[in-house]
């Protein structure tokens, strides 16, 4: 990401109020739209063995981009990242174990 577009709006109480310019957000949105178009293309084009990995990678990239840039976690205090990613990691762990218990991954 072009860090030159980042703007700082002061720093107080340990919270960094730094964010990108509007043009930077529009660039992120265009990248997200392009990835979505690629995702949809997997429905029509045969990606063979790359179908599932490519879809999962694109989903994770979109997720991280929205959380990092639109939700400002990349620029905000790390405590917020800790709270969110802890919940996410706990959810992933619990439900992967639950799905494994039902032998979902062997189907």
């Amino acid at each position: 990401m072009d860090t030159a577009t980042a703007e700082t709006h002061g720093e107080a109480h340990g919270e960094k109020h730094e964010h990108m310019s509007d043009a930077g957000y529009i660039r992120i949105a265009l990248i997200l739209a392009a990835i979505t178009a690629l995702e949809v293309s997997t429905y029509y084009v045969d990606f063979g063995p790359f179908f599932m990995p490519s879809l999962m990678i694109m989903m994770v990239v979109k997720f991280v981009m929205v959380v990092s840039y639109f939700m400002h976690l990349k620029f905000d205090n790390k405590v917020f990242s800790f709270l969110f990613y802890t919940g996410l990691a706990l959810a992933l762990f619990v439900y992967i174990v639950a799905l494994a218990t039902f032998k979902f991954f062997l189907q």
Partner: protein
Amino acid sequence: MADTLHAAGPASDHGHHSATGLSNNKLAMWLFLGSECLLFGGLISTYMLYRGRVSDGPHPSQVYDIPFTSVSSFVLLMSSLTMVLAVTAAQRNDDSKTNLWLTVTALLGATFIGGQVYEFTTFYREGMGFTTSLFTSSFYTLTGFHGVHVSVGVILLLATVGIIKRNKVTGNKAESVELVGLYWHFVDIVWIVIFTLVYLIPA
């Protein structure tokens, strides 16, 4: 003690701040969003388990309209852009731009909900009732819960527009808009996961 005094003084300028110096409101919102991951994680994994369990009624691949859902996904994705533009306008104290972008975001959210209502109606007409099969129950529960979250988001957005117009914002206006934005973006990232796992990956 000195730290406590230092934190308590300026905190009054920006609303309520915790001993860490961070906004209590933002901490609570992030904690809430972290807990929401568990809620949607449960619903998504239940759907993944039951999506192939079709004893009666249509199979997922027979009813999903990928082009239509792709447009809905694009609309929701673009609403995240308009939301972040509202947040930056609020940080610049530009009330008119803030209200404009919040209203556009609410309209995009309402468009998404309209699409979901249309999709549910179409599915129902094709014989896909809530209790038709384990697949339909888990599908409607997952996407319905997400739709309720989007609807709550639209109400929050419109309420924020009304509060800003009447100049009734208590505390930090930019932070209030940012908190609504965090909720809205969360709804978007949940749909990013649902769109891939539910619609694009065949059962």
